Every structure is written in C-alpha cells, then in structure tokens.
C-alpha cells in the first residue's frame, strides 16, 4: 500500500515531493490550506464547523441537558460486602460496585494499598503486586474446585492456530529452544 511518505501527501494542495531545499525561506511561512471546493467530495465535511453544533462545546455547561433534573440527595446504596474506599474521599460513594470483594493474600495487600492516597505511588504499586498474587490465587481456586485451567485455551490458542500458524510454530520453536538450552545447561552443571 502506498502511504503518505511515498506519494505526494495531498495532491490538491501540496507541491513539494520530497525534494530538498537549501533554505528555510524557500518554503511558505504558513501551511497551504485546501479550499471548500477541494473538500466538497468529503462526506459530511463541515457539518459541525459551527461550534454551536458541537455538543461538547463549551466543555462545562449548566444546567445539564439530556438527563432528568436531580431531586434531592441520592439514596445511599446499602453495603453488604467489603468495598475499599479512596483516602481522598470522606467516605463511601452513594453508588458503588460490589464485584469481587478483596479476599485472601491479594485482599490483604489491597487493604494495605488503600492506606495510601491515590497521589502516593505505593498505593498503585501495591495494587499491581496484589493483581499478580491474585492470578496465582485464581489458579489455586480453580484447582480447589476440581478444575484444571486450560491456560492455552484461555490465551486463545485456537484462533492463533487458525489465523497465525506460522507465528505459533515460531513461538513453540523458540520456547522449545529456550527450555532445551536451559535443561542442557543444568544437566551439564550437574555432571
């Protein structure tokens, strides 16, 4: 495919074709712009040229459109599971998610992370560490429920085989070579 570095980038408005000029002053001091006629073939061109037609201009607008007028305070969602709350808030929000409450070792790490504000790097690094621990817990949980996770299927090996056989063979060959080399070196060391 021809991309814009190979062809005249915009034939209806540009005249330079990659040839070198010695002086900056050989170039116009502002960009050349296409005329409306030159852009007439673009479907929908200029339909929202007027800012009044752009729904997000200005960015902040009050009273708000498209939603019902608020009536009093929101009812508070009852809390039945543990929800970690940012230290940058005075308390839990009126509406919150209840999926996957913290549990196990990863939950302990997450609780520790929430001692620090979002502003503190430790908060995020601990959460990332908890995520990795949680992956191991997930495998253990599968096994505890009598399910051996089919990791290759979870990673989409079927589609890799269907659409990228050469790539899959290459990955298997590289992995095999790495494992083989490590095994060889370890056996050599034992001798």
């Amino acid at each position, binding site marked *: *495919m021809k*991309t*814009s*570095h190979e062809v005249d980038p915009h034939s209806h*408005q540009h005249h*330079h074709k990659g040839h070198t000029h010695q002086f*900056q002053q050989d*170039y*116009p001091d*502002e*960009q*050349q*712009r*296409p005329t409306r006629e030159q852009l007439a073939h673009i*479907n929908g*061109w*200029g*339909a*929202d040229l007027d800012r009044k*037609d*752009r*729904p*997000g201009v200005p*960015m*902040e607008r009050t*009273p*708000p*459109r*498209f*939603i*019902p007028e*608020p009536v009093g305070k*929101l*009812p508070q969602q009852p809390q039945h599971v543990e*929800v*970690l709350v*940012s230290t*940058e808030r005075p308390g839990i*929000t009126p*509406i*919150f*998610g209840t*999926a*996957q409450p913290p549990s196990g070792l990863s939950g302990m790490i997450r609780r520790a992370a929430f001692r620090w504000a979002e502003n503190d*790097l430790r908060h*995020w690094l601990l*959460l*990332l560490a908890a*995520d990795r621990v949680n*992956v191991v817990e*997930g*495998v253990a949980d599968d096994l505890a429920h009598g399910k051996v996770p*089919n990791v290759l299927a*979870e*990673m*989409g090996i*079927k*589609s*890799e085989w*269907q659409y990228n056989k050469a790539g899959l063979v290459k990955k298997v060959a590289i992995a095999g070579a790495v494992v083989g080399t490590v095994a060889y070196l370890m056996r050599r060391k034992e001798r």
Partner: protein
Amino acid sequence: MLAMNYRGPYRVRADHKPDPVIEHPGDAIVRVTRSCICGSDLHLYHGMVPDTRVGHTFGHEFIGEVVDIGPDVKSLKVGDRVLVPFNLFCGNCFYCKHELYGNCHNTNAQATAVGGIYGYSHTAGGYDGGQAEYVRVPMADVGPMVIPDDIHDDDAVLLTDALPTGYQAAEMGDIKEGDTVVVFGAGPVGIFAAKSAWLMGAGRVIVVDEVEYRLEFVKRYAQCEVVNFREVNDMGEHIKKMTDWMGADVCIDAVGGDAAGSIAQTLTGRLMKMQAGASTVLHWAINSARKGGNVSIVGVYGPTFNAVPIGNALNKGLTLRMNQASVKRHLPRLIEHIRAGRINPKEIITHRIPLEEVSDAYHIFSSKLDECIKTVLIPPSAREVKAVKASAQNAQN
C-alpha cells in the same frame, strides 16, 4: 448466567456466574444483546491497569433489553431496548450538573481521578461489565438511552463508547476550518476521530498506525491520508515535512499506553511497567504539533506517571486537552449524523463472535488477527431470543 471471566494477563474465559441483582433503588438489570471488545479493554487484558481482580467481567460497550428495574426508576420500563454509555454517572454531583458525565464523583468509591466505568477494574469502581448475559445498570434513569426504532443494534452499540470518544477527541482538538489534523491510531476510536475531524471542517486528516490493513481501511472509510510509522525515519520530522515544515494544527492520541514504535517506551512502559503504559504516541503528538497547536488525548493511560516531553509542550505553547468521553451529551447529535448518512458506524465491525468463544475473541482483537478492527460478542441468550423471534415471524407469515 454466562460471562467473560478474567483470569490474569492474556487469560480470559467464559464461565457461569450468579445473575446480577438490584442493589440500589435506581438500578436496572439489562439483558445484553451485544457487547464489544474495546481497545481500552486490552489495557486490562494485558495486565496494565492496577486493581484488575481475577474473576472480573470486562465490557463497557453494550446494549440490551431492560428485564428488571428498581423502585425509583421512572423513565425506563421492562422490555425497553437501551444503549448504555460506558460511564456510570449519577446526574446529581457537581460534575454531572456541568455535563461532565464522564467525571462523575458519586459512582467510584475506590478512586477520585476516574469516574465509574462498567467492567473496567476496581480502579474504575469495581462494577462487572457487559461481556455477559446480564448486567447491573445503576442510575438507570440517568445513564441509558432508549434506542430509537430506526437505529440498528450494531450502530447503537458503537454509540456507547467508540464513536462518541472519537468524536470528542476531534471536538477537544478545537478544529478550525482548514486545519491539518493528525490522528495517531487506526483502531475504532482513531477511525471515528478521523471521520469527525472532517465534520468539524478539517482541511487535511492524516492517520498514523503500523497495521497495514487498518490503514487501508481508514483511508477508504474516512477518506484520509495515512502514514505507516514503521516506514518513516522519525515521526515528528515526518509530520513537519508533510505540513510545509510547520507541524500539525491538531494532534490526537487515540492509542494510549499500549503504543508500539519506541523501544525505550515499550520496554519501560509496557514490559517493565515502570510507567503507566508506553507514552510513545503522546511524545509524537507533542513533537508533531505546530507551535500554538492543540493536542487531544483520549488514549488510556494508567494512574501513575509517564515520560512525556512536557518542556516541548511548554515551549511550543500547546494546548493539551483530554478526558473520558461524556457519552450521553453526544448521542443526539451523533444519531443525527447516522440518520443523515454522514457516519455509518457499523461498517467498522469485522467480527461477530459468540460469548462462549471470548478467549479467542480477545486474542484475535489483541493480536490483530484475521484483519480484525472491531469485535462484537453475542451472548447465547441473545441468540436464542433472536431465533425465537425469527421463528414466530415465520409462523405469522
């Protein structure tokens, strides 16, 4: 119900989970008929977003049918066909009162910087998402929109995020007539940003990516120029050459932390997680914009920090604007564009995959196999209902 189940980086599967229930008087339960995999789901899939818990169900782009409502819900009824914006918002807080629906302060207990987002980790509120048969939809009077009869399901599902985000990206670029707009990323959001740039009167639209089939698609779909960054020496220099050595008036980052194109950024941002993702595109955007130009960011980065040439942004007098899209306020205008034939969103859908095959759906989308641009997941219950309706229609005929 059947739902996508995150098991760890690059590992997802379809599992049975308990059905969601009404937890707040303003909730609704929606039976999902279509959900998409979004480019930003890949940040979760790749393990880049902190507090992504095993067992989480992703999915913030979905439509469906209301099957249950809480006692406070007035504007929806059971049976309504609804599209659900990816942001959870209350309609009551300071930000919602200023139409910043993407910045709601009342829906995410676990962080303040980001509002609640369906199926987007506990950093975005800990709500299970729509890659499932059923989903809990809080503040049902405020967020969802009943889909007009003349709007196709495939268009509606793209109105929940990809199209409004692309449109808002162009909008935040404050495009003036004749502007040169460079969009980094030829994924769904980049494609819609390119299309929207023309609506706002751009004079030139250039899309940058490395994936040939996507560049080919966007060139046809959005009538734009394309650049494969693998084939140029330096991105900043190249854009200068293309713009009479000035730089672009507007640069749009529609990629975020999963960007390719810089070994140092990939190593520190994606592999070693020393940054909140690779900020390659943000770097290019700042260095490709002309002095006094605008940089608009909708690509998703993590919450820690990124290495960007902020000094250049200062010296060039750039305006940097960024936000999560406030989907709801864009819907009426975007529906007008669809009806007028200015945008045909569903044309970008390349794959429709049963929810049961979610592992392969993610791998195909993530690895850009089979010329994938946009993947829609169809839950088994949606297929059954469709089959029953078709058979009833046949019986009538």
